[in-house]
């Protein structure tokens, strides 16, 4: 049975997108994938189940283990895009008190990053654009880029690249395929990090330009 976990970090919150089926046959691999994908410094984890087709009790036990791991103060976990039938069981059983359930990935990220309705990507932008020391109110800047979509695109690019390779050559064994997808996604996310740094610099530059323009305008008035 196939199962895949792909990673992204929109708005600085780690998101694991689960694809396929999780049962006792691959729950150990699923657990390892989640453990390996999270590092000591990660304070929050979102499990995106949009492409999850089935989860047995073995998979739920893995989620329980991750919930316990992320239960410490200052850490958090959330789950989103659950199918109607799974959602019904999760809420009826009270499992949603162990892992909070969110409708969308953005909702989950917002809840975990504590950024309210501003949106995870907005938090990113606000952090990038903090204009002056001593200014404690973040400026609400609308994001020009939806990191949620970037994450999906990266997953698609990775899958497409591997499929293209397999079309020209031969099918990779499942492990090698999963490793390849992971490696591609990591490379692309590194590129996104570089790009985000550039964006931060641009945003900071815009705030500096704005401040200078303001100064000039005031000088002219004076």
């Amino acid at each position, binding site marked *: *049975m196939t199962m895949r976990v792909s990673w992204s970090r929109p708005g600085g919150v780690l998101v694991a997108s689960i694809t396929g*089926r999780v*049962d*006792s*046959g691959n729950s150990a691999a699923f657990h390892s994938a989640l453990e390996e994908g999270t590092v000591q410094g990660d304070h929050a984890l979102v499990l995106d189940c949009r492409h999850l*087709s*089935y*989860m*047995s*009790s*073995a998979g*739920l*036990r893995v989620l*329980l283990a991750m919930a316990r791991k992320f239960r410490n103060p200052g850490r958090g976990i959330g789950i989103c895009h659950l*199918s109607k*039938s*799974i959602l*019904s*069981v999760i*809420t*009826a*059983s*009270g*499992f*949603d*008190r*162990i892992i909070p359930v969110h409708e969308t990935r953005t909702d989950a990220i917002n809840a975990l990053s504590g950024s309210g309705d501003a949106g995870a990507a907005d938090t990113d932008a606000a952090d990038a654009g903090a204009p002056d020391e001593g200014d404690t109110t973040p400026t609400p800047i609308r994001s020009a880029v939806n990191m949620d979509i970037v994450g999906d695109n990266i997953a698609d690019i990775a899958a497409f690249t591997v499929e293209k390779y397999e079309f020209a050559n031969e099918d990779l064994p499942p492990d090698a395929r999963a490793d390849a997808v992971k490696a591609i996604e990591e490379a692309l996310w590194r590129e996104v990090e570089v790009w985000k740094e550039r964006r931060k610099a641009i945003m900071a530059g815009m705030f500096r330009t704005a401040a200078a323009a303001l100064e000039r305008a005031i000088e002219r008035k004076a």
Partner: protein
Amino acid sequence: MVRPTDTGDPEGNALLTRIPVIYRPGYGKARAHDPELAADYMRYTMVADPLADAAIESVAGIDTREVTRLIRAGMDRETRFLTRAPRRFREFFDGVEVPPPWWDSAATHSGRKAFHEYSDLFIPAFFVATVRNAATLIAKAFHATGRVNSRFGPRRIRQNTRHFIEIMLPGALDRFGEGWRLSVRIRLVHAQIRRLIRSGKDWDETVYGTPLSSAHMGVASANFSATVLGLAARLGAGLDRDARAGFMQIWRYASWLIGTPEELLFEGDEARTREWADIAHICEPPPGEESIVISKALFDALPGIVGQSAPGDVRRMVSNAHRIARALLGHELADQLAIPRLRTAGLLTLLRSRRHVQRMAHLVAPNVASVWRGASFAFLLDAAVLDDLSYRIPDRLRTEEATPW
């Protein structure tokens, strides 16, 4: 030995001469309650599972590892690999591949939801139903395997609990779902145990009937469905008609997969199924030594499963389980199973009141109530934890002599 008695029912009298000897006194009593159901039960004490038995017989001479591989191929529908399997083995998987026309997964939603809402009541009910099953002659077959004793008891309870939890999850009974796999696996294991028992000399079918007979599959199915519903309600579960019907349908299909004949599933009718279970228990001989051993092993395994090891806690927990089981099973059966005589007066009322308080709390503070339920569900997942889903079947009757399975 009991002689057939003339009750003025020629057909019943004729059957009385053919049924396994040990059932004759019980059948005599059961006929007075419901002659038709009693006769049905008796007939099925002499029926095995032709489809699964033929499959297991067809791979009897094949290396155990290869058999495990073939079972896995059947479960995973690896068509290419399955062509290596004997025809009757393939026919078995063909037979379970397509669900019966009455199976409607969507119609089970309410039952599944109710189970999760009241899992803290369903699980004790399920445990007590397991003890009730142990009161039948099925205990003799399981005892022969040595798998239900203090050493293997905890694993067996975990396996049962896991199956119960699994079939209550969405998609579990779809083809490739874990509930589907576990149910089919149980059927093959039963067929193999039956084969091993029959190949020995200790089981006389004219006395005891078919080992792990269809009658026993039927009574187990009835206990895990209708009896569990009744017990959970007595513990305080408030279940509406849809929830009960959904729960019955889940067990109807799971039981069909396990090999219970369709006629013994009563179209998932709860009342009829409960009647069948009651008649079955009247037909059965009084619980013997094997039933007592298995019942004790089930109770003794509980503390280990919930992670209690302090002697005081263990004693308290087993004692509470004895009290609840006695209250639910009644003193007569509890005495027969050597469940200690403890006071039960007012116990069920107390448990129901506690549940009532929790329901009230749910109305006042739903978050607090769902925290309780969440903790209970987490506990269930822990209780059902097992290393993997093995497709091995026993290669020896006695578990301690068999390759681990």
